[in-house]
């Protein structure tokens, strides 16, 4: 049974021209990692927040199913969500420096978090975990204020605090994009290690395909609030069919690529009010795309929301 199961999740902000997240369905099993890929405006952060009950009060959420550990959470109140965040769901944010109160010492905030989760007595264990993830001399350094620690160190604390409560689900929203590339790979390695040890389900959100490549089992590509393609990591990264996914993959400069050639790049564009959100930028666009919102259909090894891609895939194979 899936640890997290979501069906047809839609989140709307009052006055938004289109929903921030529209009709997203996903499942994650324990011990597996789902990566959600998307650029700014894709609705990926909204999705993550919705799954932790952290949406803004003005946001409206609809879904036909929302279950964690088999528990139906469609009607869960704020109290229940808070309880869940103390025991079952952990969240890691993008900016390590912004996820801690700048005016209180780290140790005070870490203690707050531990006692909120009912683990006040496990501080020594947390220190051990911190030391294990490469945070030297945690007792002393945690007495500092957040701005006195580097981004990499702060993110290690965030991860340690998130993991020590032994959650069933770990949601990480761009956990490395504010960090330097060498630090980034260390953080990813730590996340991967802790995940497989604790056998928890992980949802990682990123705009960076190299991050996805490194940690994901399954990949889901979001554009304009809609899932445009999803599948196993190898399939999405290796043989994606949706023009947006392809475009993303192609437009990343690679170390082993050709030097000083033009990268295949996508047209700039906006989000249309109706039809396929990607239509204005798409090279496969046909009239239907502007009228009908395409559904996910199996094409080759993945599910993709692109009928024209399906027909061209048939032709090429």
């Amino acid at each position, binding site marked *: 049974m899936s640890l997290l199961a979501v069906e047809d999740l839609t989140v709307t902000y009052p006055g938004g021209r289109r929903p921030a997240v529209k009709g997203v369905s996903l499942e994650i099993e324990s011990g597996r990692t789902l990566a959600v890929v998307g650029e700014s405006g894709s609705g990926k952060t909204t999705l993550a927040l919705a799954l932790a009950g952290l949406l803004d009060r003005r946001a409206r959420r609809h879904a036909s199913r929302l279950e964690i550990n088999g528990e139906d959470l469609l009607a869960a109140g704020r109290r229940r969500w808070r309880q869940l965040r103390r025991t079952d769901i952990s969240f890691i*944010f993008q900016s390590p420096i912004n996820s801690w*109160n700048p*005016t209180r*010492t780290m140790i005070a905030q870490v203690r707050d978090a531990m006692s909120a989760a009912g683990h006040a007595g496990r501080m020594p264990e947390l220190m051990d975990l911190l030391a294990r993830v490469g945070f030297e001399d945690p007792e002393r350094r945690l007495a500092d204020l957040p701005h006195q620690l580097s981004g990499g160190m702060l993110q290690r604390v965030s991860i340690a*605090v998130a993991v020590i409560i032994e959650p069933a689900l770990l949601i990480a929203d761009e956990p490395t994009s504010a960090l330097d590339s060498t630090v980034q790979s260390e953080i990813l390695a730590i996340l991967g290690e802790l995940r497989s040890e604790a056998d928890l389900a992980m949802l990682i959100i990123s705009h960076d395909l190299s991050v996805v490549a490194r940690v994901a089992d399954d990949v889901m590509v979001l554009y304009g609030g809609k899932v445009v393609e999803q599948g196993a990591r190898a399939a999405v990264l290796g043989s994606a069919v949706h023009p947006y996914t392809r475009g993303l993959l192609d437009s990343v400069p690679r170390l082993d690529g050709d030097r000083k050639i033009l990268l295949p790049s996508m047209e700039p564009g906006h989000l249309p009010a109706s039809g396929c959100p990607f239509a204005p930028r798409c090279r496969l666009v046909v009239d239907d795309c502007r009228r009908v919102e395409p559904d996910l259909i199996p094409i080759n090894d993945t599910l993709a929301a692109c009928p024209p891609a399906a027909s061209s895939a048939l032709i090429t194979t």
Partner: protein
Amino acid sequence: MTQGRYPEVTGPAPGLRFGAGRLARFAKGVVWLLVVVLVAVSITFALSRIVPADPARLAAGLEAGPEQVERVRQDMGLDDPVMVQYVRYITGLVRGDFGDSIRTRGPILDDVVEALPASIELIVVSFTIFAALGILAGAAWAYWPRGVHAVLLRVVAVAGSAVPVFWVGLLLQIFLAARPDWFPLVARLDFPVAGNLNHEAAGIAEVTGAGLLDALIARSPSAMWEAARVLFLPVMTIVIHNIALTIALTRSSLADQLDREYVRAARARGLSEWRVVVVDALRNALNPVVTMLGLQLGWLLGGVVIVEVIFSWPGIGLYAFSSFQSFDYNAIMAITVLATAGFVLVNALVGQIYPLLDPRIKEAR
């Protein structure tokens, strides 16, 4: 590149020197206080010497002949060169001597000491009420931004700052003290005496001169009730006028903090709303509020004049007003100096609060 080609635009700010320490900062503060007071003294002194009215004439009284006036002038040292007078005044100040009042004919310091408790009582009580209520109301407004209370608070915040304080005082007097005589119209009429409460009538001893405090010391509930009734209208006048800014600033500052990512992150860690909103966000939001409250407390030292005049509150403000009315320039100078020093001191104290609210600030200004 030569110096000064461009405005100072780039690079981190030139650093604050290290190891200055508490003592050095304290010394700096004292020097600053002295400088400000000296400037204030000098300006008011210069002004007082171009007063169109002749102090000697006033001091001698209207019936005095020219010879008498001349003698008074000599007694007061007003015929000396201005610089001599200035130096004499400053040396007097250093010894704590503000000179004599023309009006009451006693040393000004005595008058001031007598009037001070009543003013301090008024200021402290009003300040505590509007600061506490304002922060509370502003915080509630920021946390629950919609609803009837939000509309109400907006009205208070906008109207409160627009309403002239003397007019509020008059209206309160007309509609709460005169028609239904729920409250005493004015504090007491047998001015000048120390204290704002008729201690004799209330049957308690006069210890500090501040009615409420004396009633507390005497443990007399009836006197406390009387003291509170006396205080009510003037305090309300000050609160109505000052609470608006506190509410508005607390609200915008807290709303800003509640939008920050760390608040969401704290919620994500399962912290209770109380911890997130009060321990984390509100504490951070108080920084600009404290700055403003410090300034307001400073202004109150001067602003209390109007309220004291309306309610005949026998404090330093009323004393200043009476001195001004009778061109008692020595008294006016003394009050200017004291109020300025008070303002600087209050703000120095406020400077000590910043590091408590935000430990990133080492060097408090």
